[in-house]
């Protein structure tokens, strides 16, 4: 049942992504409308799947790289849908939906059982809050990344005064910058909250707030990077191209922290240990 839900969600999101890509090429509004509906349906099904997982596991379903990538895809989709409600920016979907789709595909292709034996250690509200807020922030940052890429593409055309086929398809610079701003302002508190709850959970589960494991360190670096961006934006008035480049770098850092460190290190944050194949 759960597996079927997952596959249905995957198919729907892939369909929606395909539709969004067709939309940016063909510029038919009806294509977007349907892709959007399919995406909403995919999101709902995906939500049902995750709810089911949560009920079964008794904690947030992010205990393996496979599961957490799927969860990440869900927050990306969710963040996009929120921005769609606010900005009504059809073309944003063409940039963000593929991101969600890629995460889903990678997640699907990673071997591993969906349900692992959950140790009581992980059945904590703090862990759930930690993970959900972190991923909510990540979802926002993914949208921000998409908007930043779009900004750079559009800005380049306007600056160089050469207009390709994307020019009419991409929204205005101000809109893209506003998305960047909003995603940052919403995403950053989530990220912060995620790190704080993570520390609280660590204190409860492991007895110390901070253990300097690579993932924690890199998370802190990522957090600082976003903090710098937010600070520059709010006080100095960074915006536009510079902010877009910075958000792309920050996002790459985030992906590295999320995927790279999880694979490379063997500390307690790594999925290998979480899945019960290593320490502690």
């Amino acid at each position, binding site marked *: 049942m759960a597996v079927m839900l997952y596959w249905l969600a995957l198919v729907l999101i892939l369909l929606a992504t395909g539709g969004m890509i067709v939309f940016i090429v063909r510029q038919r509004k009806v294509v977007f409308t349907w892709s959007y509906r399919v995406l909403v349906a995919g999101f709902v099904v995906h939500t049902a799947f995750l709810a089911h997982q949560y009920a079964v596991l008794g904690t947030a379903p992010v205990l393996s790289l496979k599961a957490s990538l799927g969860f990440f895809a869900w927050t990306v989709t969710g963040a996009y849908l929120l921005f769609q409600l606010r900005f009504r920016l059809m073309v944003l979907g063409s940039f963000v939906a593929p991101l969600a789709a890629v995460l889903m595909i990678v997640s699907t292709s990673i071997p591993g059982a969906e349900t692992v034996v959950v140790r009581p250690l992980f059945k904590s509200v703090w862990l759930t809050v930690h993970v959900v807020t972190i991923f909510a922030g990540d979802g926002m940052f993914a949208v921000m990344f998409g908007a930043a890429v779009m900004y750079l593409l559009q800005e380049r055309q*306007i600056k160089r*005064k050469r*207009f390709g086929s994307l020019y009419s398809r991409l*929204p*205005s610079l101000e809109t893209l910058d506003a998305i960047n701003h909003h995603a940052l302002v919403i995403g950053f508190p989530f990220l912060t909250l995620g790190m704080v709850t993570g520390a609280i959970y660590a204190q409860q589960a492991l007895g110390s707030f901070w253990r300097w494991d690579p993932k924690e360190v890199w998370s802190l670096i990522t957090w600082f990077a976003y903090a710098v961006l937010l600070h520059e934006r709010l006080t100095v*008035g*960074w915006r*536009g*191209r*510079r902010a877009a480049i910075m958000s792309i770098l920050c996002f790459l850092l985030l992906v590295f922290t999320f995927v790279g460190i999880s694979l490379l290190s063997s500390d307690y944050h790594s999925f290998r240990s979480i899945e019960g194949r290593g320490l502690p």
Partner: protein
Amino acid sequence: MMRIVTIGMSHQTAPVELRECLARDPANVDRALSAIREHPAIREGLYLSTCNRVEAVYTTDRPEEARKEILGLLASLGEVPADALLPGLYTLEDMESVRHVFKVASSLDSMVVGEPQILGQIKDAYVQATQARTSGVIVNRLMHRAFHVAKRVRTETGVSDAAVSISYAAVELAKKIFHELTGRKVLLIGAGEMAELAARHLLAQGVGEISVANRTFDRAVQVARGFHGKPVYFEEIGSELLEADIVIASTASAGYVIRHERVKQSLRRRRNRPLFFIDIAVPRDVEPRVNDLGNVYVYDIDDLQGVVEINRAQRQEEAVKAERIVEEEVLRFQGWLKTLGVVPTIVRLKEKVEEIRRAEMRRSLPGLGELNGEQRRALETLTRSIADKIVHDPILMLKRKADRPSRDQVLDLTRQLFRLDDDENKS
């Protein structure tokens, strides 16, 4: 052999740097016109100088000499060597030249096809030419026909409806930068028809405040009144730059009005809010390097053409229709030009008199009762010799003038006095 020649450069053939050399000094027009008037090889002429084109239209019997003179004139006006001008120049002769003038007047050769300003600019150029007494029969005729063609193209084709003027293109671009223009602040530096048109377009999009800066404050006040805007001193531009979102520059200044340093300094205090410069001045008002600054976008007139290019295809069809109208009118003009020779006028004059004589004979004969052959012949001879005598002196006069410079005037006057161009009088 008399020729009609156009020598000039336009946005299609010469870069803005070269065009602005020639447009630098407003007094250039007067200088050009007096050169046209003084030079013996040039009979009549007209000098058109807009921000998109510089053209001399003239008639001559000695094309080589006249061409040299005009080239020299353009080089001296632009303060550049003639060699530098040559690659950007085109020379059109006779019907090519007529066709070109018609197309320019009907805005088919404009940077923004169908934009309405060019006709006004040509009318101004023509008024200047008549005031400087450089226009003659052919230029007069050419101009009046050009105005007529422009009117036909405007009313009979969709070229001007579909026309996206420079200012419209600028507005579209502004929307790609700012998304919504509501509440944005506009600074107008310098005032001209084009700048005001752009400002009006922006107003229609709901921009907030418009500030107007001008070298002469009176003019700023006057322009600002038209937009319910705020007139500011020219010296206030620096502080206005901190507030403005869109700057339309169109001064006649020879140097840059907006310099890189000044914009750079204002950026931080603006908190990097985007700034869009629309530079429709030739020579340019905004230093091109300003475009390198972050969140600042500078478009000069040539750049805007690139934007306009996008919608060109849609107007192609209407343009074909317009081309046909131009072609028709060129043929008509060619027909008229042929009548300017002495012989065709004399022939036509004789024909006309003979037509009148015959018509009157036909009307009067029935009232004269029965006439025998001899009486009838005598009557024919009488009327014919009266008619011949009446036109004898005018014909002699025309023949005498055949090689004189005043020939065209005399011919034109004759044709008007005797109404020899019946089919032409309607238009």
